[in-house]
């Protein structure tokens, strides 16, 4: 479900880009940051989400 939320955020960013909304870039950066934190958390705790 968590991944679906990340992807939904990407969809929202795409929609904001299409509408020319100024929140598009901050939302993109926030989504990348949160997803990166999640990836780093996985890297520092091996064998949780990775195969």
């Amino acid at each position: 479900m968590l991944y679906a939320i990340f992807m939904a955020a990407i969809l929202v960013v795409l929609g904001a880009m299409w509408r020319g909304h100024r929140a598009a870039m901050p939302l993109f950066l926030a989504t990348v940051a949160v997803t990166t934190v999640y990836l780093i958390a996985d890297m520092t705790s091996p064998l949780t989400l990775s195969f």
Partner: protein
Amino acid sequence: MPHIYLLAATANAWTLILILGAAFWVQFAAGEPPCPLCVLQRIGLMFCALGPVYLLIGQRNGDVSVRNVAVAGGIGIVAGLFGAAASARQVLLHILPDDPGFGSPVLGIHLYTWCLIAFIVHIAASGLMLIGATWLPERRIKPWPLTGVTAGALAAMVIANILSVIAEAGFHWELPSDPTGYLLFK
């Protein structure tokens, strides 16, 4: 020159969309549900596609501006770094001798290694796009006809992945580390 940018951005976006489509083909035709790191790499591909699509969407106003090229290139590089980190992580997990790797290889190379190659190429392409802005004239051109269909295809691919990952994870917060089926239907 603006048309070269639009053509390159369209080709870039469609290449990423087709890679996501190929991942679906492996998922359903070969019966290999993606692992969590595979899904993160798919997310990285979607992030990357936002760069060229941003350039295409920005051109609807009539010009390929240096500002839009810079933002699209920045998106591409940041997204490519994220995706490269995720795929390099998975490559390193299977780097030991005699490790069979995860999933079936395609053309002798596992999908996560293909992804790492794709992300590195994407970063390089984004850098070249930024350098090429040196020769970009500021002039208005006709709206690019492939913008809508490209953005729509990316949106459809994101929605398909959302449905896929919900089917795979069911009502669980995370995916199983070595998925064998779809928890929503069990």
